């Protein structure tokens, strides 16, 4: 089985170590949730794994393929950045056609959220509409592993629930690593949670560990449990 294996990943800025000897492993059918405070290095970690950000050292492998840059990860890893990335002045139908294989593009062409957007150009879409197009494009790409960096930015609650259900439905074929500022979203989705702090990853088994780590207050945790 082609497992995503990240090892010895180190990154520093101005002599400050952001990511320190990170080890991470994900297999198909697994969703890993990555949480951490602002500036803890979550996005940097995903960009390094994808290949767009340089690391001081890294070893990323999927199956037998060592991923040194974006080209090596073709059809293996795709990355959803925090901000919208679709090109302007092009119809959504064209963007889907160019991005996906025929089989997968037909799924999007028949998706209830996508159908009304097909003949619009990217700049005519709201932030939430852009986001759902991007998420579905990335999920339906041929890649085996999907890195989602704050996928729920600007998305309404009903669409957020739809996306969560959609990812859970699609998870058998791919492995996912997902970050989000709303830890509840990550807890709803992920099979395992990793907390990034001071350059180190720590596995989280229970929510109360996040209080001890200073990520949540007791009030946050109780409020979330009530809802």
């Amino acid at each position, binding site marked *: 089985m082609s497992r995503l294996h990240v090892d010895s990943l180190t990154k520093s800025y101005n002599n400050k170590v952001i990511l320190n000897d990170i080890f991470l492993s994900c297999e198909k059918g697994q969703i890993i949730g990555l949480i951490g405070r602002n500036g803890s290095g979550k996005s940097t970690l995903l960009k390094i794994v*994808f*290949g*767009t950000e340089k690391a001081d050292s890294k070893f990323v492998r999927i199956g037998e393929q060592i991923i040194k*840059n*974006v*080209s090596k*990860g*073709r*059809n293996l890893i*795709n*990355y959803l*950045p925090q*901000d*919208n*990335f*679709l*090109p*302007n*002045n*092009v119809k959504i139908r*064209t*963007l889907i056609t*160019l*991005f996906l294989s025929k089989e997968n593009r037909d799924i999007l062409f028949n998706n209830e959220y996508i159908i009304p957007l097909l003949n619009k150009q990217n700049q005519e879409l709201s932030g939430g509409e852009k986001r759902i197009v991007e998420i579905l494009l*990335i999920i339906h*790409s041929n*890649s085996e592993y999907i890195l989602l960096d704050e996928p729920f930015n600007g998305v309404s609650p009903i669409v957020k629930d739809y996306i969560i259900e959609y990812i859970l439905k699609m998870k058998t074929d791919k492995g996912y690593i997902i970050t989000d500022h709303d830890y509840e979203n990550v807890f709803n989705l992920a099979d395992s949670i990793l907390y990034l702090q001071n350059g180190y990853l720590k596995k989280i088994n229970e929510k109360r560990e996040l209080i001890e780590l200073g990520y949540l207050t007791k009030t946050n945790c109780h409020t979330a449990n009530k809802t």
Partner: protein
Amino acid sequence: MLFQKKIFFLSYIISIAIGALLGGKLSTIGFCYVFVAPIIQYYAYEIKNKNQYYYYLNLGLNNIELWISTFTIALINLLILSLI
């Protein structure tokens, strides 16, 4: 193709305008394009819409390949215009 479409038309219009000011020879327009297209790419993708690179990166292309494609098209264009 989509990536180059954005650069090509704008670069060509600017190159024709500059070329016309410099005498209007086709080879001059070709030379102008070699300099204008990378500037347009830099402005459109490195400054204005940096995030749009991710559409192409997710297709497995990298920044270097995209830059090479711009220079290759510019040089082919120059060759064709010089031979006409």
